[in-house]
């Protein structure tokens, strides 16, 4: 379990993190979202012991991570900018990881290089941007870490590889209870893998919730009411957003399907359908409800 408590970090006059607190349960896939400069990378670097928080602390499994080499044996951090030893090949890097991580699995490394189709004897400096990203991911996965911090990891990956990586991460979570924390500014990349999300904005976490809870409790409806049914009949719904085109109403509202049905079905609408919301739509709704202009937060 990762506990982040009142973490503050400033870079000169810039306050990158301002009293950030969060808890990430073991075995969950945590999506850390936020716009550029919101403090995602800084928080990840504090979580993996690269940076020291000015105040507050990060505990992983009850231990402070900074300068804790024993704890860090179970942590892999994949930066948004990959670093490899100069003039090294994948095999060189594997040897390096093996000298550093006791849990580094050479068999898995070989297998993953085959899966990703990377030549282990080729100089990494000759790899494309996407290939270097793959290289860092497969090296990290070969460690079998308990915690994996991924910073904008899916950027630069083609859709096939992206899905492959997501699958591998999901496997690690399922089989080894790995806890990945994935930082990204792209909501669409996280919605099909994360089960928990936190939104960082201006150095603080605005939002921290289970994705399923969010999806279960917010819905998008499309319905056409009978002519004699007044629009006020929908007022029992906890409406977050309402738009209409002709007699077709599109409503985003809070509540379970049962609660919504209990309001809508007695009205005997001409047409009624509950449409699943994307993560992005959920965030838009949630944030607008909190009074934020969501487009300025995420995009």
């Amino acid at each position, binding site marked *: 379990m990762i506990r982040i408590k009142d973490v503050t970090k400033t870079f000169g006059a810039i306050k990158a993190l301002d009293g950030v607190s969060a808890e990430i349960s073991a075995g969950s896939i945590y999506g850390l979202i936020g716009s550029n400069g919101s403090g995602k990378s800084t928080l990840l670097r504090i979580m993996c012991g*690269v940076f020291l928080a000015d105040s507050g602390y990060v505990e992983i499994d009850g231990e402070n991570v900074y*300068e804790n*080499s024993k704890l860090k044996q179970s*942590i892999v951090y994949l930066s948004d*900018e990959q670093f490899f030893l100069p003039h090294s090949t994948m095999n060189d890097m594997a*040897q*390096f990881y093996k*000298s*550093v991580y006791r849990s580094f699995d050479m068999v898995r490394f070989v297998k993953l290089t085959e899966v990703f189709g990377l030549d282990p004897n080729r100089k990494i400096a000759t790899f494309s941007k996407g290939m270097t990203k793959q290289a860092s991911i497969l090296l990290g996965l070969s460690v079998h870490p308990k915690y994996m911090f991924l910073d904008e990891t899916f950027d630069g990956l083609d859709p096939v590889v992206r899905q492959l990586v997501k699958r591998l991460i999901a496997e690690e979570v399922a089989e080894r209870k790995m806890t990945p924390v994935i930082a990204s500014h792209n909501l669409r990349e996280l919605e099909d893998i994360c089960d928990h999300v936190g939104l960082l904005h201006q150095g603080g976490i605005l939002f921290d919730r289970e994705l399923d809870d969010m999806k279960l409790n917010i819905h998008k409806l499309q319905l056409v009411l009978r002519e004699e049914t007044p629009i006020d009949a929908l007022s029992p719904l906890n409406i977050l957003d309402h738009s209409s085109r002709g007699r077709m109403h599109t409503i985003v509202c809070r509540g379970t399907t049962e609660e919504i049905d209990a309001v809508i079905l007695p009205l005997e609408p001409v047409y009624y359908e509950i449409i699943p919301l994307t993560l992005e739509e959920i965030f838009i709704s949630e944030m607008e409800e909190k009074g934020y202009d969501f487009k300025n937060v995420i995009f």
Partner: protein
Amino acid sequence: MTLKMSFSDRMSSRGVSISYVSFTIKRMWPAGLLFFIIFFFTMPVPAVLSLSSISDPITYTDYYSSFIPTINGIFMFTSVFSAVFAGCYALRYLQSRVSINFYHSLPETRLSHYTSALAASTISYILSAVINELLLIIVTASAGFLKHEMFSLIFRGFGACAFYFFVFLSITIFAGILTGLTSIQFLMTGYLVGILPVIYGCVMLILDDVFNYFDISSLSSMNVYAWLTPIVRATRAIDSITGIRKSEYRLSYFIFDLLIIIGLFIGSYYIYKNRKSERSGTPIIFPRVASFIKYTLLFPATYILGFIFGEIGSYGWLYFGFAAGALLSFMLINTVFNRTAKAMFVGFKGLIIYFVLFITIYIAINAGTLRFIDYAVPQASEIQITADNRLFTIKDKATIEKIRDQMKDFNKDLKDGKAVPSNYDVSSVEKGLFYQISVDKYNNDEATRTVSPEVTYINAAGMKMTYDYYGINYSYFSEIFELIRSSENFALQYIPSNTEVEEFTFYAVTTDNMLDDYGTSQHEKDHIDNEAGHNLSSIYLSYGLYKGYYEDGDYKHFDPIRLYGAFNVGDSEYFNRVSIGNIDYRVTADTYGTSSYRYRSNTMPLYFDNIDSILSLIPYKDENSKIYGWYGYGDDRVNFSNVKKFLGSSLEDYLNKLSLDIGSIIIVNKTNENMVTITDKGDIAKILASCASVGYPSIISDFTVTHPDYVVFINYGTGEQAISCLTWLLADRVGDISDIIK
């Protein structure tokens, strides 16, 4: 349950991972390879080339006394380079945001990273150096030159170079921890090594510039710089240890540098622990350090450019140079520190404050309103006051006070040389003390006779500040000498020709070989035992070739002290003689107090043109003596028990051996060109009692204790064997012999 831990586990538990350290060491191979190549082409390869030269084969002496010391000197240079390169190479992971995110996210502590960097740097150097040292030894051995002393020389050279490798490595590592870019780390290393001597030099230049009589040489000796930069200490170490030339390397330097190594290695680690990873990639990690560096660089840059422009002439150019130096260096430093020219004026207010402060202090010093130097002169009671021109000593305060009073008048009579600042008045230097007068300029022309005394003040730190007065009219100065002569402490430094010698020791000079040039001289004393020394000294004294005089134009000067000049030979012949050792002498305690320092002791090299007979008497004390290999003698030296003749060992004995009587004395009156020849023994005795010592320096004779009108020639022996020595009549005794010299 007993839990067994491997060494690796134990080290890991203390924060150092052995596997990580060993991997880092392996990754240092490019640096190690570079060092190996450099050492290879500067150590074994030149040795092979030198030894394999058929037309001009190198001798053991050349190899020992010249080649290996040169190799060691180069090795010191390459070691310093290696230290800086290794330090930068090993810490390059710290100097990039991308790499530091990677390395510091690894399950390694800062201690582990730091230890790895140090170990990798050290091993890459040591391994390369040791292999090449071994190759050098093998090459040396293959030529048959690997003797004990040769091995010792190589080993000592390696020790000195390795030691200073660590000194410079610790500085480079320290620089690396303070900086966030490798290029800046390199520059910072240069800054740490060089800033103190640069600032000190600038301060000296300012003092020299502002205080016309400030003697820069008294404060800027290499001894001072040796404390300010390890470059000088490293140079002295290798010079001293490997004997390229005699050099002052002190134990205190070693201790100081050892403390630097320990202090910087430990200090760097603790700074590293507090070093913010996010600052990597920025030139200077700690903003306060950046400010400190900026302004310590601004100072010399400001002054040096001002100094350059000031050479054009006017004060306007000087201050323009100051402004240009401050502004340009400020802009340059800001650009480097911020990596963009857009930031060249960041902190401009600070520059303005600095420049106003600089100019204010400079003007204040120049105007004499800030006399911190003069104020630093201690109280009279705190100094041992002397007026000393090396021939007389004044200790009583009353006389010194009088001298000080006189000195203030000299300011008004300065004729040439540097002008005294208008606001400078010796008498106003309340804590200043008249310490030294030496006369170094003298003109025979009475009308323009001037003297140039020095006045030395000592500040609280014991530092000497010497003010030179040029061209003071002799008439003013003569009063000073009257004061000196009237002092109860005044003692005429007069050395009678039969001065007793208390100590007269011989020591061999290990590799002194005058056949080549001065550069081969070494003065490592290798005292032989007393009996051998006495015997050899005696042989020297009895040797027929020495002569107790030296020639100066048409004159032969008798000078028992200047034995080193006692050869009536030309330069080429002189240098073709071989010095086999030195003789030290020291006058007796009774004579010591009344002798000028220059006569109290001396060292005289022994030269013989028939060297073989003497060399055969020099015993081999140990293997070290075999460095006389040039002479080609084996171990079958003649034992000193074979020496039949013992002729004594003192200078007095030597003088007695001359067996020359004074035949005549000629006194020349320069004023009326009258010459009197005295042969009467009684008159000769009176004249001798009224003369200054033979060899008495003529430089002060005319205005101190001797009469300016008379020159005395004392002739020892007769005919062609006669030796003349020059001296003067004591001024206050001329009256006693007026009837003889009339």
